[in-house]
């Protein structure tokens, strides 16, 4: 490798970046806009869920239970006179669930006990329905406790669960979504930065000019990687600052480990982009492949929202070749738990293997030949 030639190539690429503002826009404007949009747009915390309350025979007992729902910040209850009206509201999507007390509720509750509280949830969005059922259970449990206190008999149930959540005690979904989003966004940006670059040179015929120069194929590739690497790290720094300042996500781990992992991850993303554009040599195909192999897998197969353990085993195996999977896990650990070396070292080793694979493959399939 000739250092002077390499310097010349890096300079050429850097000038090309500076004079074509679209790369700079990809590296800085995109993470800014996307992080804002995602950070505010993606939330799994349900608040003010509209529910229907139906008491066939209203009494002090039923209104006691209902007032628990009115005071909860999770619900926005509306009272309906009968089940027919409530059912219609559920069908039309005006409410997400119905709480139904049958006419004999009060008599049974005060007598033998075990009076049924009917809960009917709209199961179309299954995850949301389960979260809502959890909230309803909470209101019901505190009503039971209050009832027992009123009667002076302590509530005795066989088993009581005390749960503690580590690393994110308030279960703020932002705190885990924003680090995951950084990984998704950087996958997209890293691949986009390089995916179109080589394909465009092939289409325009300027690749021939590079081929005719004395530079070796390694020098040409390194010359392309270095400027885009710094551009991508700039975008990464911007995203981390936004996560901490705008979304108030705590950064428990250390900054240098974060940037070490980010550098390794960016190499995989840029390497993948280079590989795509080297194979495709056509901007339409390169763009299509970049879209299909980066953004959607990073969104769905990285464990960012959907739990990897719960996937069927062929897909679990597939997730091992998605670089974003390791970066999502690293970022969530670094932001929320700290420098947990067993997790971080495992992920960094995997990222290193993927980066080397992509870069070596690109170098091997790029011949200095026009065919």
């Amino acid at each position: 490798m000739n250092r002077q030639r390499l310097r010349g190539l890096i300079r050429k690429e850097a000038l090309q970046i500076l004079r074509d503002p679209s790369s700079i826009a990809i590296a800085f404007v995109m993470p800014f806009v996307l992080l804002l949009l995602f950070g505010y747009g993606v939330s799994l915390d349900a608040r003010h869920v509209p529910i229907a309350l139906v008491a066939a025979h209203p009494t002090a007992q039923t209104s006691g239970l209902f007032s628990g729902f009115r005071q909860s910040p999770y619900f926005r209850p509306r009272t309906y006179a009968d089940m027919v009206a409530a059912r219609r509201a559920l069908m039309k999507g005006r409410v997400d669930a119905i709480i139904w007390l049958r006419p004999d509720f009060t008599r049974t509750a005060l007598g033998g006990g075990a009076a049924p509280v009917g809960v009917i949830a709209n199961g179309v969005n299954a995850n949301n329905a389960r979260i809502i059922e959890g909230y309803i259970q909470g209101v019901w449990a505190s009503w039971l406790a209050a009832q027992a206190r009123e009667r002076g008999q302590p509530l005795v149930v066989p088993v009581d669960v005390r749960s503690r959540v580590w690393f994110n005690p308030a279960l703020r979904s932002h705190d885990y979504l924003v680090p995951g989003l950084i990984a998704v966004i950087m996958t997209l940006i890293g691949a986009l930065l390089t995916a179109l670059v080589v394909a465009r040179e092939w289409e325009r015929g300027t690749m021939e000019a590079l081929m005719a120069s004395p530079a070796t194929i390694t020098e040409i590739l390194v010359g392309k990687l270095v400027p885009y690497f710094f551009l991508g790290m700039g975008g990464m720094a911007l995203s981390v600052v936004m996560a901490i300042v705008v979304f108030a996500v705590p950064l428990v781990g250390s900054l240098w480990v974060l940037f070490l992992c980010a550098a390794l991850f960016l190499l995989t993303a840029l390497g993948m982009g280079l590989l795509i554009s080297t194979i495709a040599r056509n901007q339409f195909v390169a763009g299509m492949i970049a879209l299909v192999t980066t953004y959607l897998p990073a969104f769905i197969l990285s464990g960012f929202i959907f739990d990897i353990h719960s996937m069927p085993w062929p897909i679990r195996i597939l997730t091992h070749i998605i670089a974003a999977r390791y970066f999502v896990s690293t970022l969530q650990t670094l932001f929320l738990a700290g420098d947990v070396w067993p997790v971080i070292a495992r992920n960094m080793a995997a990222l290193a293997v993927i980066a080397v694979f992509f870069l070596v493959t690109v170098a091997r399939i790029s011949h200095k030949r026009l065919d």
Partner: protein
Amino acid sequence: MDWYRVQALVVKEFLALLRNKASRMVLIGPPVIQLIVFSYAATFNLHNVPIAIYNEDAGAAARQLIARFQGSPYFSIERMPKSGRRIRDIISDKKALLVLRIGPRFSRDLALHRTARVEVLVDGRNSNTALIALSDVNAVIQAFSVHWAGTHGWRATPAILVTRAWFNPNLRSRWFIVPGVVGLLTLVVALLVTGLSVAREREAGTFDQLLVTPLGPWEILLGKALPGFLIGSLEATLIIVVAILWFRVPFMGSVLALYLGLFLFLLAAIGVGLAISSASATQQQGLLGVFLFLVPAVILSGFATPIANMPLPVQYLTYLNPLRYFLIILRGVFLEGDGIAILWAQYLPLVAIGLVTMTIATWLFRRRLT
């Protein structure tokens, strides 16, 4: 408008799209692979979550409780640590998502008709998974508790919850996700077919050739839009068939209501694609435009996370997103059995978005002509 001329242009567009083997593959292969992979992967239902149980109790009751966890498909017990000191490492090293701790007095408390305590420690790094796992743990323990109360003569609580879910009784999130994937992939295909079509000609220099033909601007745009319609509706049909036959998502509503929705959605999506294409001078700009539209459109559609959870200003923004309406149509027709009558509120915005984007596309197209 001369249909014969438009037809010739449509044939030319198909040839341009399908002539290249790579671009042919790219149009058909990835959507089908993605449908299969994502539909299996995108689930909120937990399965085989690794857990650890730290049992300090020697009694039979604790063994019964553990047996319930062993029998549950939600969990797989990976570790049974012998001391409490290992718990911290098990969670922070991601060896288990949660640790269930049964105290030394568990069986004795139950025998004395006192409330026995169980402690659960959860990894909150992914707080949604943590929440679902906690609710699964609660369900297992609740079932144990009810069974114990019934068989050991405990007094019943005044009220019990009887929960039912409509439209999706077992709360399978796949039924929610698969119709969503249909909408997502249809949008991707429609945007890619149309988003680069004008820009490609501009870059190759054939745009000027197109302009000296007798075709008017409207005819050119129609010729560019029709391949998107045909490919989009064919792929959507393929994906819908796979969703019904392979994933067994129930199809309760009317086919007509679904295809009216698909037609209007494609109108809107192709309008967006043509507008992006007419505005961009190169394919790279066109592709960037497609990305910049597609990424927020997926996030702000209610595909994975509910729109109702978003802040109010962002919720207003989702009204501009055609995918939002199509997802409601898809899920309504598939799961709730909706017909055309109930979906008017979704069709009309799609028509409006389609008309506005088509007008913008024509305007941009004409402006670039001068």
